[in-house]
């Protein structure tokens, strides 16, 4: 690609690339295009092999010149992956296997017929849906952060340029002063998407007001909230957009260096980001005098090494500086004294990915979406006990019901909805009564949870909320950096108390002690990890007091999850005496009784029973039983 060092050359490239991408997607010249999902989820489901097979088949049929194939970023609808999409028809095939490729090529590409068996089937209407936009999962979504994801080839600068890339940057650095850029971002109302929800424009203003020889933009891609993967998908699907956002931030408050701090667990995202940076450097979109202006900018990547606390901005800065990732006291805030002591703004991946839109389309195009206090859209990672697991980007103010039922398609197996956990280990649970609450930063906090990075894990009647709190506490104990004693020691004690409760050794006093200790940890910790460490406990205790009481008073786990508080039992009236459970049992604690089976008269078949004193509660018996004769009690 030629150098893009002037506004004019950028305009020429944008015009040319837009034309080429448009021609590709609209099938001009009789050509067709196949795209395959190259997100981490689909790669794990063999999408790389699928693409290779498509290339092989195209070659075998002599179609390489008429049909193109490439990978794209995450489609978001991960539970239905891997996806293969055909342009210009816009046909979306889901759950594609390598063995389906032959059919796609022969029937669709050559024969011009849709492969009905590979289409998405609406679970309610049982109708087959051929186009992505007609699927309920996508209908209520508004894609700003996910712009271009699942459409452009994330390894090609040309496709990013052909899909609105760098228009925002151009407007910012060639037509606006830095202060005008900050004002535009302030007017958009965008708040930090990483969890804190602090207005991005105000953060930039702080850093802009400080005089310094060097300032830094840091992109926080240390997405540690277990169950949230939007930052990864954005970086994998359109890394150029995030770099553009970072450059606009740099221009706005006077930084010429940017650092991406990305989890080492995300190798695909890192390699695409690396490639994007290198390609931009090659054409001069990163470097000195960008587009012929006085603005110079360089971007670098730093990898995390598996520490949740590094998602906290000051801990992250320590980690980039090659130290233990422990938080620093604030003030001074990073905007005043950050990386290597210089003014630094730490912005989340999703925040930066929305900045180009704001500059390209204007603040009013962004702030017309959302609620009074929370503007724009938010990406949620919908997971857990919900039919449509995946990434969804919806306007702020969308209700949980829309999220879980309309977009998420409800709970599998017609189980009852119990709770939705938002905000990860720092957040809390929302219940049935909150389903019609419009979700934004403020309503979530008012209901005892928080937005966090946007993880939304649905739980059903089979999940024990004490066990969930126990799980989060285990996580926090593991991830507490150890700097503040209340967090380091207190979370361990909370974990022990919860363990006691799940083992049936808890008392009502334990519950009181937990509440008291939770307050101490909250007040005595330096960073958000410690301050919010007890949230999962407090939130579940508030919303599900009856479950805690059942554990401590009746020594029962209502959801039959806590092993010490439940039993497997064989129902004599359903047992066929087939001996399968006895053979599956790893500790041989199942044996026939003297009672003959009663389901139907069978000679020499006896009802079986479990010796509870030997049972290790592994569940093998129940999983194997063909007659539904084994229950948890």
């Amino acid at each position: 690609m030629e150098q893009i060092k002037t506004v004019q050359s950028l305009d020429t490239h944008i015009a040319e690339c837009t034309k080429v991408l448009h021609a590709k997607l609209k099938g001009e010249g009789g050509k067709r295009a196949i795209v395959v999902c190259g997100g981490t989820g689909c790669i794990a489901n063999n999408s790389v092999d699928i693409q290779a097979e498509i290339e092989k088949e195209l070659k075998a049929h002599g179609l390489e010149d008429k049909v193109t194939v490439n990978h794209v970023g995450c489609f978001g609808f991960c539970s239905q992956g891997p996806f293969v999409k055909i342009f210009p028809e816009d046909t979306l095939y889901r759950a594609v296997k390598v063995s389906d490729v032959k059919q796609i090529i022969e029937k669709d590409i050559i024969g011009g017929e849709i492969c009905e068996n590979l289409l998405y089937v609406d679970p309610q209407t049982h109708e087959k849906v051929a186009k992505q936009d007609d699927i309920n999962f996508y209908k209520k979504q508004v894609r700003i952060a996910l712009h271009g994801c699942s459409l452009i080839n994330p390894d090609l600068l040309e496709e990013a340029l052909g899909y609105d890339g760098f228009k925002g940057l151009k407007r910012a650095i060639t037509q606006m002063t830095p202060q005008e850029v900050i004002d535009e971002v302030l007017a958009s109302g965008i708040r930090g998407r990483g969890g804190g929800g602090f207005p991005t424009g105000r953060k930039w203003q702080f850093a802009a007001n400080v005089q310094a020889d060097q300032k830094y933009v840091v992109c926080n891609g240390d997405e540690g909230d277990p169950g949230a993967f939007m930052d990864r998908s954005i970086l994998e699907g359109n890394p150029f957009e995030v770099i553009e956002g970072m450059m606009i931030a740099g221009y706005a408050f006077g930084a010429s260096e940017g650092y991406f701090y990305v989890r080492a667990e995300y190798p695909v995202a890192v390699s695409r980001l690396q490639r994007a940076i290198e390609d931009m450097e090659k054409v001069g979109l990163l470097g000195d005098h960008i587009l012929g202006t006085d603005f110079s900018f360089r971007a670098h990547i730093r990898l995390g090494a598996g520490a949740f606390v590094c998602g906290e901005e000051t801990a992250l800065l320590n980690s980039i500086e090659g130290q233990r990732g422990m938080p620093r006291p604030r003030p001074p805030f990073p905007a005043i004294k950050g990386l290597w002591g210089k003014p630094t703004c730490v912005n989340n991946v999703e925040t930066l990915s929305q900045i180009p839109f704001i500059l390209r389309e204007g603040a009013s195009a962004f702030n017309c979406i959302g609620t009074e206090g929370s503007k724009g859209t938010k990406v949620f990672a919908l997971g857990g006990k919900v039919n449509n697991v995946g990434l969804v980007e919806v306007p702020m103010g969308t209700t949980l019901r829309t999220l879980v039922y309309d977009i998420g398609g409800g709970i599998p197996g017609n189980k009852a909805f119990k709770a939705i956990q938002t905000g990860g280990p720092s957040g809390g649970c929302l219940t049935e009564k909150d389903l019609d609450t419009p979700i934004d930063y403020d309503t979530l906090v008012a209901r005892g949870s928080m937005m966090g990075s946007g993880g939304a894990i649905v739980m059903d009647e089979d999940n024990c909320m004490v066990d969930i709190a126990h799980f989060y506490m285990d996580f926090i104990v593991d991830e507490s950096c150890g700097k503040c004693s209340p967090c380091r020691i207190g979370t361990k004690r909370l974990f022990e108390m919860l363990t006691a409760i799940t083992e049936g050794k808890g008392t009502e006093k334990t519950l009181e002690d937990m509440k008291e200790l939770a307050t101490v940890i909250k007040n005595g910790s330096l960073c958000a990890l410690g301050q919010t460490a007890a949230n999962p406990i407090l939130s579940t205790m508030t919303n599900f007091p009856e479950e805690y009481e059942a554990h401590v008073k009746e020594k029962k786990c209502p959801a039959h999850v806590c092993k010490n508080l439940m039993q497997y039992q064989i129902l004599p009236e359903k047992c066929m005496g087939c001996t399968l459970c006895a053979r599956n049992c790893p500790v041989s604690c199942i044996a026939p009784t003297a009672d003959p089976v009663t389901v139907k008269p069978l000679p020499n078949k006896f009802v079986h029973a479990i010796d509870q004193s030997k049972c290790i509660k592994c569940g093998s018996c129940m999983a194997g039983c063909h007659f539904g004769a084994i229950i948890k009690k």
Partner: protein
Amino acid sequence: MAIKPEVVKGVNDICDKYANEPSPLMMILSAIQKEYGYIPLEVQQIISDRTGIPVAEIYGVVTFYSFFSLKPKGKYVIGICLGTACFVKNSQQVIDKFSTLLGIKAGETTKDGLFTIEAIRCIGACALAPAMSINGKVYPKVTPDQVGKIIDEYKKMEAEA
């Protein structure tokens, strides 16, 4: 433990590669962990000699981050996702099953040096929950009764190799 001369050279080369970066320690450690699989004290001493960063500081960083390891890991690192989405879909039972069958707890390595079990945090494959990975290869929707088969697959591969 004596470090082989080629390893000393390799570690020094890695240190030199990042010598011009500001605060290069994390980058050096990541590269060494990736190349050699662990970062024992002796190697930390080599890094210290080359970069001038005190061993105490290097040790502090190595022990802080879960990606860095002081001991060698097994040939096959079985990482079972304990992210929330996997946890609510019973990934704990998958870990328990691996523990029972291999006779080691999460974080430990089998005596023959073949397998390490790790409880890992979200790998972002939530739609495939419960997910696990062995040396980076992701296994989607794992149930406890598949565990025996997965282990056998690797044991067989070893026996044939």
